[in-house]
């Protein structure tokens, strides 16, 4: 019996799944002769392997256990360490769950590439990508963490590059890999500081997370390590102003990859922030939390405003990921503030809000990207201005996409609402803090969060309305066919989980509760579920309560009863053509479109962007009174490009040019360099 226990443990299952992913990636080229069966086999296997990860994660979180393994791999004397504790288990579950759903989706989606291009590399890097994410959350030393981090980044780089004949894809992938590495360097330095301090710069053995956990860092070093780590992870998570790669890279990747990148890859950075602050450093001043909170709020606001202004569906979704990462950071920031004031119960609430939002965002963003993929698959179009009326030809996709939109707009009874509501509750508890400054400033953050919530609804009314409702805006007849069964099945499962996570929050919170217990030493489940599974009462029922099941069933009941009452008597429904106010030349191009829908927002919040609008008249008969057609051009850009990136790029080019002057290409000059070098060395190192 003990023997089976050793082999059949969460960490072994998780390691097995990683091994399987890597094997699958390595063997992909061998069985890719028949591309059609390759797709089915390889993505079925990734789906199965992801489920192994989910099983290991759920098991760990449920049992609250922590397991460690030292691998016989790695550098001499520096073996790799793996550890599966509730925090890793939670993230493993999230990654595995979306990995499973997206893999099913891919079985249908990737078939769209058949006959256009070989998909072997896609299947291969897809497996490697999932392996990398699993490894990141399991890593228990700096070395293995960074290797996993790089595998994840490299695999996703190749996935973004999949359709590499397009210039925008190559550009996006380059931007992505550059920012990923700038971030990775910062993370490396942060781990370097911590590992060095753990052994007082005497040996390399401080590279394990255990050694860092056991060390009390001096405040200034801890701050340096935190700032570096936060910068590094922020670059990966797409925190404003390091988010510029995200709206470039996510849209150009194949949609199943976008779903994984937005849904779970960004979350590995969230995992990193939580791991470094709460677990490895463990003791920090309140302003760290305030910093995270402020960056979270800025990301949420800039992200969602940019999303509202987009015309490209996948860009809109990518920007909304920036917003959701912001909300998660807000939760983490609040948790850090509460924790630094030793209010562990409130810290647990804020942390649960952040984790819950992590899970929710993975689900609905996965769903939305999959829906976007189905639309792209059917119409070949990402530009919303050319779409419309797809609800008639793609009823399934439309209904499921709508569920994603409702969830992401934080409307009850779906899941996005629960986690945003919990974040608001955490905000509302901030008056308990003993600092008057925070008492006054934190509520402003809550108001900003409310603004982003309402703007999210605007963005997704626009997305759904322009794509699925109204008439087709293109010049040809409306194309579009319903997504195939695999795509529909996975979207359906994701939508059901969105509803389930929204209606049954107490069960989920009860399950996650072990994570804050591990990190901040407090739980909220006893109060959150005090009144049974139907009522969510985060701190106490007098403070606030919410019941997902009743909201869901209540609305459903009223709708059904009203419907039945009104249909007891048959009133005729007359279908008539659209009333055009007697103006007979009404065309489909006269509908409100994406640009016009966001016009009021563009006007109100335009000062946060650089907006160029131009109207050009093409005239007939050479007279301006007889315009033939009008051309309207709109370009919206981030101010951050001009503020941060252009100067950085200019400076690096300037430095390169100056350094480049060393290269004269003449042998005499290079000999002089060698001579001078030797002289200098002789003088100083005698």
């Amino acid at each position, binding site marked *: 019996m003990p023997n089976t226990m050793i082999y059949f443990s969460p960490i072994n299952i998780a390691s097995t799944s990683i091994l399987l992913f890597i094997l699958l990636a390595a063997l992909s080229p061998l069985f890719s002769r028949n591309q059609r069966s390759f797709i089915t086999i390889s993505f079925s296997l990734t789906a199965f392997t992801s489920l192994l990860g989910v099983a290991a994660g759920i098991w760990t979180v449920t049992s609250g256990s922590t397991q460690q393994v030292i691998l016989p791999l790695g550098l001499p004397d520096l073996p790799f360490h793996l550890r599966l504790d509730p925090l890793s288990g939670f993230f493993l579950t999230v990654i595995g769950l979306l990995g499973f759903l997206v893999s099913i989706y891919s079985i249908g989606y990737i078939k769209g590439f058949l006959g256009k291009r070989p998909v072997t590399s896609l299947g291969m890097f897809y497996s490697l990508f999932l392996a990398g994410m699993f490894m990141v959350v399991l890593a228990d030393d700096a070395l293995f963490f960074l290797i996993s981090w790089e595998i994840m980044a490299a695999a996703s780089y190749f996935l973004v590059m999949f359709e590499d004949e397009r210039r925008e894809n190559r550009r996006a992938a380059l931007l992505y890999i550059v920012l990923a590495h700038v971030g990775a360097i910062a993370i490396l330095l942060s781990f370097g500081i911590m590992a060095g301090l753990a052994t007082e710069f005497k040996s390399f053995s401080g590279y394990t997370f255990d050694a860092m956990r056991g060390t009390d860092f001096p405040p200034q070093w801890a701050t340096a390590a935190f700032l570096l780590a936060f910068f590094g992870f922020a670059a990966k998570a797409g925190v404003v102003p390091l988010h510029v790669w995200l709206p470039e890279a996510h849209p150009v990747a194949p949609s199943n990859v976008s779903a994984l990148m937005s849904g779970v890859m960004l979350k590995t950075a969230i995992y990193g922030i939580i791991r470094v602050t709460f677990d490895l450093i463990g003791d920090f001043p309140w302003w760290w939390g305030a910093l995270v909170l402020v960056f979270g709020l800025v990301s949420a606001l800039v992200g969602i405003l940019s999303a509202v202004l987009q015309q490209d569906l996948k860009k809109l979704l990518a920007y909304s990921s920036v917003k959701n990462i912001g909300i998660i950071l807000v939760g983490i920031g609040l948790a850090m503030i509460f924790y630094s004031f030793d209010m562990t119960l409130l810290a647990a609430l804020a942390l649960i809000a952040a984790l819950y939002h992590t899970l929710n965002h993975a689900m609905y963003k996965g769903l939305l990207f999959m829906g976007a993929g189905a639309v792209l698959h059917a119409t070949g179009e990402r530009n919303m201005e050319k779409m419309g009326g797809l609800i008639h030809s793609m009823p399934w996709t439309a209904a499921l996409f709508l569920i994603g939109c409702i969830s992401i707009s934080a409307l009850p009874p779906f899941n996005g609402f629960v986690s945003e509501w919990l974040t608001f509750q955490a905000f509302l508890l901030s008056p308990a803090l003993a600092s008057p400054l925070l008492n006054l400033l934190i509520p402003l953050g809550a108001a900003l969060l409310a*603004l982003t919530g*309402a703007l999210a609804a605007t963005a997704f*009314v626009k997305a759904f*309305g322009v794509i699925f409702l109204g008439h087709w805006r293109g010049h040809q007849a409306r194309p579009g066919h319903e997504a195939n069964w695999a795509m529909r099945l996975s979207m359906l499962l994701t939508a059901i989980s969105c509803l389930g996570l929204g209606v049954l929050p107490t069960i989920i919170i009860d399950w996650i509760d072990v994570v804050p217990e591990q990190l901040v030493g407090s739980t909220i489940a006893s109060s959150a579920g005090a009144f049974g599974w139907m009522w969510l009462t985060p701190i106490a029922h*007098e403070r606030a309560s919410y019941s997902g099941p009743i909201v869901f069933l209540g609305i459903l009941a009223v709708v059904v009863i009203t419907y039945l009452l009104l249909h007891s008597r048959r009133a005729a429904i*007359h279908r008539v053509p659209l009333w055009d106010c007697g103006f007979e030349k009404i065309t489909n191009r006269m509908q409100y479109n994406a640009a016009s829908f966001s016009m009021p927002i563009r006007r109100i919040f335009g000062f946060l962007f650089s907006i160029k609008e131009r109207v050009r008249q093409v005239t007939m008969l050479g007279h301006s009174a007889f315009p033939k057609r009008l051309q309207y051009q709109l370009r919206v850009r981030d101010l951050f490009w001009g503020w941060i990136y252009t100067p950085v790029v200019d400076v690096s080019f300037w430095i390169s040019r100056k350094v480049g002057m060393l290269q004269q290409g003449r042998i005499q000059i290079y000999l002089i360099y060698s001579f001078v070098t030797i002289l200098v060395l002789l003088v100083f190192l005698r």
Partner: protein
Amino acid sequence: MNWDPIIIELLQILVLLVVAPAFTGWVKMLKCWSQGRTSPGLFQPYRDIIKLFSKDVVLAGNASWIFRVTPYLVFGVPVLAGGIIPTLSVDLPLSATADIIALVALFAIARFFTALAGMDIGTAFGGMGSSREMTIASLAEPAMLMAIFTVSLASKSTSLSQMVQVIFHGQSVLRPSIAFALLAFVLIALAETGRIPVDNPATHLELTMIHEAMILEYSGRHLALIEWAGMMKLFLYAMLGIASFFPKGISVTGDLAAIPAAFLFMTGKLVVIGIGLVLIETGLAKMRIFRVTEFLGSAFLFAALGMLSFYILE
């Protein structure tokens, strides 16, 4: 088992369904009088609803199921909310279903679907209405949350029943923070319920329509449901204000005997609110849509001032 709370719950929903049109009728009546017109009477809204229910539905050819489901959802949300907001009593079986933040989000469902329905037919009017409605909602939301934040500072709760009880048992003086929050709430409620100066429920002018533009294509029973839901929304915002700021009169015991008195109190307050609303509506002109930013910005400012004064003065 004590059946009283359940009976009160059902009574409350009944009161909502029945009294809401009368409240709208009362506002219209006052408005007619204040403008020197003859009013159609208190019961005109009932007649309108009955008339619409008996008519056939005319649907645009390309209307999807979204367009047909929306009226029922829009109707369902306020009915559920009516079971949660304490109008007669705080001792309701459903009162813990949603706190005030969740209530605001409940109303957002109705708005979300109305905006979608506005875009479903593909006319320029519908899209215009949806775009404006969502913009105004985006601006109202932060102000609303700030007001909620301020009110909840005193009662340490966002649960409406709890807020009513705290104010009921506490001192009755209107505190500065609450006064600011009330001012903010009034401005927000005007915007959210689509009243002058933000929107004009009586107009069908393309330049000024917001809510009406979205529902322009509706007819028959669909329109009846939407109109009725709009009346209930107005009623419920009045109730939300009453519960948060002037809860005296709402029964804090779950006793059926206290309900008639609570009903009388409620009617009295509604009469007063109606007068206040008409004074605002006749005193002000509808503003340009981009002035709404300033309008709701000042609501936000009032709420923030309220919070500030809570920390400084109280």
